[in-house]
């Protein structure tokens, strides 16, 4: 694999090119269901945002195969260093829509205690899904550090670091891939090339022939894969993870796909995405492509999509109900977790905030005395 030829498994008609990975039917259906779950979660969040019930979301339509395919290659003992667009990886491994919805609302049950914007998830169970950061690229080199710990302890685990095409210009990309090359780190770098960094196309991002080819600069293999082909993504990720576990070092994978929605709910893509291009990629929908494959395996026919999608919508709808009825975080959450123990100056500021809230009759204060 040279970093410029694109690997795919499922042909547009659903037939297999080359060797069928022969996954068990329930694994195939779990993959399928997860893709629909992502889509349902996405659709609901977009509506919640439009109606002002949550502040922000990040659309995933078009890129579900990349996320779910990569997640399907991981073991529960591996770590994920995700980007903010990686809903699907968490869902695949069993994080529930309810846990995620708490973060969308930033309520008192949110894992991040309402401190982060929506979509900035953080989970430790059932898989290490590292706390998402807004600054682009910083996590790429952190992933290499986490992988060093695995090497050091002689564990056979690996790390998946996921980022966008824009992320390749970041500092963390350069230092991350460079360190991983030198250290032969058990890391798989997944560049999700969805062709946009907000409004900036790849032509303003880099002059390199592909993103995968950047691997050469760091002495590691670069693999270009069809990001709308869930089984192809799973396959190359699996192979890269195997290399990693064997001590053969890191791999850079570029998954070539297309962001069908805006960058976020704050973005209007019609200002910069050519209509024709959008229409072209609409035809390459990754869910439909996978359904054709499943159909050839006799695992799929309509109304299976409608049925599962309805179930997913229900599930997400329930999550919304639970999240909406969960109260906001307590005032003390502003002051805790800055350090393991609250230092005096922060304790004093917290106490003042409690006093003020109590004096002004503010709900968030709870009991009234600063409890930390």
């Amino acid at each position, binding site marked *: 694999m040279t970093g410029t030829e694109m690997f795919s498994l499922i042909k547009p008609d659903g037939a297999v090119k080359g060797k069928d990975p022969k996954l068990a039917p329930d694994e195939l259906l779990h993959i399928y269901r997860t893709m629909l779950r992502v889509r349902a979660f996405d659709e609901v969040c977009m509506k919640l945002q439009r109606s002002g019930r949550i502040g922000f979301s990040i659309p995933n339509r078009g890129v579900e195969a990349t996320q779910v395919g990569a997640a399907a290659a991981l073991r529960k003992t591996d770590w994920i260093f995700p980007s903010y667009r990686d809903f699907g990886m968490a869902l695949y491994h069993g994080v529930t829509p309810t846990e995620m919805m708490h973060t969308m609302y930033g*309520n008192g049950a949110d894992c991040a205690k309402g*401190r982060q914007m929506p979509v900035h998830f953080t989970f430790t169970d059932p898989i290490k899904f590292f706390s998402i950061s807004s600054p682009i690229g910083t996590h790429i080199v952190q992933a290499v550090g986490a992988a060093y710990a695995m090497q050091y302890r002689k564990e056979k685990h690996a790390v998946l670091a996921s980022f966008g095409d*824009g992320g390749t210009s970041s500092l963390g990309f350069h230092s991350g891939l460079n360190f991983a090359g030198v250290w032969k780190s058990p890391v798989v770098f997944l560049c999700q090339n969805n062709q946009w960094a907000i409004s900036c196309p790849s032509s*303003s*991002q880099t002059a390199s022939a592909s993103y995968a080819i950047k691997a050469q600069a760091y002495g590691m293999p670069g693999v270009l894969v069809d990001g709308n082909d869930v089984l192809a993504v799973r396959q190359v990720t699996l192979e890269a993870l195997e290399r990693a576990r064997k001590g053969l070092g890191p791999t850079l994978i570029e998954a070539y796909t297309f962001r069908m929605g805006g960058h976020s709910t704050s973005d209007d893509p019609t200002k910069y995405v050519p209509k024709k291009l959008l229409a072209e990629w609409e035809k390459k929908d990754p869910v439909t492509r996978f359904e054709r494959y499943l159909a050839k395996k006799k695992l799929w026919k309509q109304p299976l999509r409608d049925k599962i999608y309805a179930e997913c919508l229900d599930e997400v709808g329930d999550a919304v109900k639970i999240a909406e009825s969960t109260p*906001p975080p307590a005032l003390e959450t502003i002051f805790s977790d800055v350090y393991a123990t609250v230092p005096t100056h922060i304790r004093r*500021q917290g106490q003042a*905030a409690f006093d003020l809230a109590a004096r002004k009759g503010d709900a968030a204060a709870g009991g009234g005395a600063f409890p930390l």
Partner: protein
Amino acid sequence: MATLTLIQAVNDALKTAMRTDPNVLVFGEDVGPKGGVFLATDGLTKEFGEKRCFDTPLSEDGIVGAAIGMATNGLKPIAEIQFQDFIFPAFDQIVSEAAKLRYRSGGQYTCPLVIRTPYGGGIRGGLYHSQSGEAYFCHTPGLKVVIPSTPYDAKGLLLASIDDPDPVLFLEPKALYRSVKGEVPEGRYTVDLSTLRTAREGTGVTVFCYGAMVPVCLRAAEQAAAKGIECHVVDLRTLLPLDEEGVIDAAKRTGRVVVVHEAPRFCGFGGEISAILAENCIEWMEAPIVRVTGFDTPFPNTLEHHYMPDDRRVLDAVEHVWNY
């Protein structure tokens, strides 16, 4: 004279500068066809072409580094950093390079660039779309740091920053982008980069503030006035170099001082104001110098209204020093 929002005044300043000086360029992430995530650069690529207003790769280090090279070779770059929270990858270029180039080259190479970036809370942006990092830059000799709070100043200060022969960090209070409106003259005018602005006259308590805290303090001053305390509200607007004489005069006027900013308190800009007063006119002070600031924690999301100083907290402090 048109009535503009603060963001429209920024856009107007950019257009005014680009129309009069062909060496003025604007670039950053999404500033081109999209016109910037807050639309500060709306219409620039269309009017001035993509050699003068353009998108860059996603690298703040690159944006500022390239701007330094342009500036030292005769251009007038205006770099946008999408959110001030994302300026830190460029910290080395700003602090080690832009700020020190004139000095280390004995004046042979200079660095007249402007970095514009929205800062501050109030949009439910959480840790990384809400920060106020002015103190990091104010501790850096060689930089100028400017923060407008009105549309008039936004245009005049930005045009002055573009004229300036040294690197200027221009911090725009995003909470005020569309929430304040004001009269803005057409065409070129500048507001001097070394004088504070008296936002309200008063003899009771002096309140120092800047950026998005100015309207907050003015609201608190209204409420204080209702209680018989006349606040003297000072909009510092250029933090570095600071109008120290003006600060000392304003403090002496009342002998009672409150300093307000959104950023965390510890080692924040407010400490410098307190220190200048404690060093130069402590005997005029009739009460403790009180700071009303963001907490010494990262910026939260859901509870940001508790984190950011509001008129209640400012009023509390004003009453405290008044009654002292």
